[in-house]
């Protein structure tokens, strides 16, 4: 397969963003958990809570620093690989990124130093305040990034200006309170909280299986299962909100998630399993659950959800309109001062569909004279591959329900004071908790895949195609940096995981009060868990 600049740039963005999001969710959730545990410490004065904060704080630090390091790339690669995107929407998209730095990242990065180095230099309350600043900064950071990302999914509050050849803000308020951004924010931070909760739950379960650090493990498990339970519910419920918003704004994304080729009478059925075929434009095989899809996506019994084929037909009209807009724009750009008011008026009338006009550019240099075949090809280019969308979404949702189940079970055992029962009689549950540690990461990455791949071919939904947004670079240049980032990130990831495992094995400082664990009991149980080797 021959990869061009667009493919390689997308691959690079996907790679760096997915790597970045290996570290971000844990930072989001663990920072809140650390602040919560430290609050308990300050309120009760019990040293064990301080030792918990220090232990989980060490793991937080090992993870945090890679979030920071990989985040550096994110801030600059829009300019590096997506220069035309940056020029085209920087007026809108740049602001949330800059405010993220001003309002959030400075806060978290400045106070994280105090978190690690300020234990002896601050009062208890002073240190607690610093920890909360880190947690708040981290979460605000996510807010601004998702306002930026939400705008790419649903570009509100902006208009295209032919004199500057870019989109400009018309209402900053609309950009901030974009419903898609708000839904994405709560869904994403909840996902981060679930990740941290499952991480803490799994490691605590491992200590319980080993019969080590029981005091700290039980407390950690209690707090992680309660926090995880609330977050897992919220991630699924608010994910549903995202689905609802997607139906309002990104109908194609929803149709491909559901592999729904044809429009069905309302309420539409839900494809539990299907084998979509892009070439035949149908599902070779499908198991359907009646009514469910219509209910989730429209929250009504009588609203029709358009299928992929119907959406493609709609696109054709907009492509024709977009070709007119594109043509008028070229005339304006060629001679901005002398161009007639009629041309400007033609542009204004069709400007909403300008993005669809760009879709023709891969097929013809003169969009206005495009043939029906070209328009058909451009219209079908608005459909992302259905199969990966369909399954990525289902893996994410299955993980979500599994997290609710797991945290419910552990919350039950911890809130009824039966964690020792788990350790003695239900060890298999603890084993499941340990082996579930990677699942939240899988769910997060699948979620981002659905969100971003599902927006294709658009970089800005219905406004600018990804193929028109790249920088003028050579294949060699992009390959070189792609290889460089893969090598660097992979090395750092291996180092990170090795250090994580080392410090998990060392475990927390138990202080003097720790009971001596009944080691014999742990060893006699068959299949006692050991962590994967370093």
């Amino acid at each position, binding site marked *: 397969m021959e990869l061009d600049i667009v493919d390689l740039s997308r691959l690079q963005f996907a790679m760096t963003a997915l790597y970045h999001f290996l570290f971000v969710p844990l930072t989001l959730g663990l920072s809140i958990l650390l602040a919560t545990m430290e609050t308990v410490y300050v309120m009760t004065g019990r040293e064990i809570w301080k030792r918990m904060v220090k232990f989980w704080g060490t793991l937080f630090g090992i993870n945090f620093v890679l979030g920071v390091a990989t985040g550096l790339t994110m801030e600059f690669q829009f300019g590096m690989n997506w*220069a035309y995107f940056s*020029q085209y929407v920087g007026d809108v998209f740049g*602001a949330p990124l800059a405010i993220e730095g001003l309002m959030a990242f400075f*806060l978290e990065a400045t106070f994280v*130093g105090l978190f*690690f180095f300020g234990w002896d*230099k601050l009062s208890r309350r002073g240190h607690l305040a610093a920890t909360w600043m880190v947690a708040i900064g981290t979460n605000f950071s996510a807010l601004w990034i998702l306002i930026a990302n939400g705008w790419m999914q649903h570009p509100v509050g902006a208009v295209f*200006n032919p004199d500057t050849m870019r989109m400009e803000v018309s209402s900053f308020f609309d950009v901030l309170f974009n419903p898609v951004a708000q839904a994405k924010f709560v869904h994403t931070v909840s996902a981060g909280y679930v990740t941290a909760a499952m991480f803490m739950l799994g490691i605590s379960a491992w200590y319980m299986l080993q019969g080590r650090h029981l005091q700290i493990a039980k407390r950690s498990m209690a707090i992680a299962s309660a926090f995880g339970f609330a977050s897992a519910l919220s991630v699924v419920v608010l994910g549903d909100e995202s689905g609802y918003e997607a139906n309002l704004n990104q109908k194609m994304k929803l149709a491909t998630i559901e592999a729904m080729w044809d429009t069905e009478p309302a309420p539409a059925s839900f494809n539990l399993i299907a084998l979509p075929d892009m070439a035949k434009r149908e599902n070779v095989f499908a198991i359907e659950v009646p009514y469910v899809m219509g209910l989730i996506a429209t929250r009504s019994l009588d609203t029709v959800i358009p299928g992929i084929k119907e959406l493609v037909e709609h696109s054709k009209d907009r492509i024709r309109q977009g070709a007119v807009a594109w043509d008028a724009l070229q005339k304006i750009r060629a001679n901005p001062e002398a161009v007639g008011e009629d041309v400007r008026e033609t542009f204004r009338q069709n400007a909403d569909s300008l993005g669809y006009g760009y879709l023709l550019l891969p097929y013809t240099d003169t969009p206005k004279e495009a043939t029906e075949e070209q328009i058909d090809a451009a219209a079908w280019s608005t459909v992302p591959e259905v199969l990966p969308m369909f399954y990525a979404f289902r893996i994410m949702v299955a993980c979500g329900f599994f997290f609710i189940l797991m945290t419910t079970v552990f919350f039950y055992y911890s809130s009824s004071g039966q964690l020792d029962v788990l350790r003695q009689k239900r060890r298999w549950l603890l084993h499941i908790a340990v082996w579930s540690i990677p699942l939240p990461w899988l769910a997060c990455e699948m979620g981002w895949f659905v969100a971003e791949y599902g927006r294709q071919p658009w970089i800005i939904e219905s406004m600018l195609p990804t193929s028109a947004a790249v920088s003028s670079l050579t294949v060699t240049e992009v390959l070189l940096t792609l290889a460089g980032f893969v090598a660097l990130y992979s090395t750092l990831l291996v180092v990170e995981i090795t250090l994580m495992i080392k410090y998990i094995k060392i475990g927390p400082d138990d202080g003097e009060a720790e009971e001596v664990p009944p080691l014999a009991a742990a060893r006699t149980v068959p299949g006692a868990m050991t962590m994967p080797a370093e």
Partner: protein
Amino acid sequence: MILHELIDYGTLKMIWWLLLGVLLIGFAATDGFDMGVGALLPFVAETDIERRVVINTIGPTWEGNQVWFILGGGAIFAAWPPLYAISFSGFYLAMFVVLAAMILRPVAFKYRSKRPDPAWRTAWDWALFVGSFVPALVFGVAVGNVLLGVPFTLDSDLRMTYEGSFFGLFSPFSLLCGLLSVSMLVVHGSAWLSMRARGDVVVRARRFGSIAAILAIALFALGGYLVASGYVEGFRITSAITPDMPADPLAKQAVVEGTAWMRNYSVHPVLWLAPALGFIGLLGALVLLQSRMDALVFAFSKMAVFGIISTVGVSMFPFILPSTAQPDASLTVWDASSSHRTLFNMLVATIIFLPLILAYTAWVYKVLWGKVDEETIEKDNHTAY
């Protein structure tokens, strides 16, 4: 909303040009001493404990300082989108080198002391050196290229084509700027070490700082001569400019002209203050480095950073990224900014948050203040880097 009409567009562009300066100077004055310290690390500290002393003078605060870099990127994106798009895609491979080096730095700080193994620690020491020295050098080289002009063109859709190459970035003048940047930050880093550390590392830091100060003075003077003599050609706008024009870089005409970078000084002689502060700062640091007036040395090195960066800005004004391949497409203060509304909104955000940032950063420095030496490292063996 018409709130943004409170300040006219041309004035906002000027304010954002000044804020761009504030960001660059903020970055160089804070993260700059971290880079200076990192670049000095292998040379001023020989034993493991000495290296830990050096690293821990910046250990708790480098992270906040580095945000100036991130914020710089974000703010240029928000306020100067064409500059963000053209400079980072134009300097593509150089940016990759900077990012790769800067990615190593946070990891090196955090992971170095997580294992006692000497090979592990030495590897991260070199990562810290690379993560400090390479960005300092490349940023200087980039500024040199901006002064020389960059070979890019814009078509009528404002799509940019870059006609240069990675190795084309390294001309004698841009290398001079790169070395000036490194030596300036080494002076700054050694001033910081003198103030925050104790022991042999300080003696060595002062020695290297003095050498770097002499080098920086010589390079700054030579660079200034090359610009003043017209060896480095400047740019001049030849068409009429209205400060509130829409941000279309193609709406004006410009030419390359021998000594155009000196024009602002003859029109406004007060601007000579910028290079003067650069020299005074470097000289002051050089003279006082061997004394015990550490805080004063640090103030002088900050003054040098301020003076040298300001010199670049005021020499080029109103240009921010001139094009050698198509001078008309050069980016200037008047035609490369965001819209009126965005500049206003971002100004409001800056007015709210920048003072807050400065206040809590100052507070955190105060809490963490105190000399670092071998004793303090041994006392905090577990928490220190």
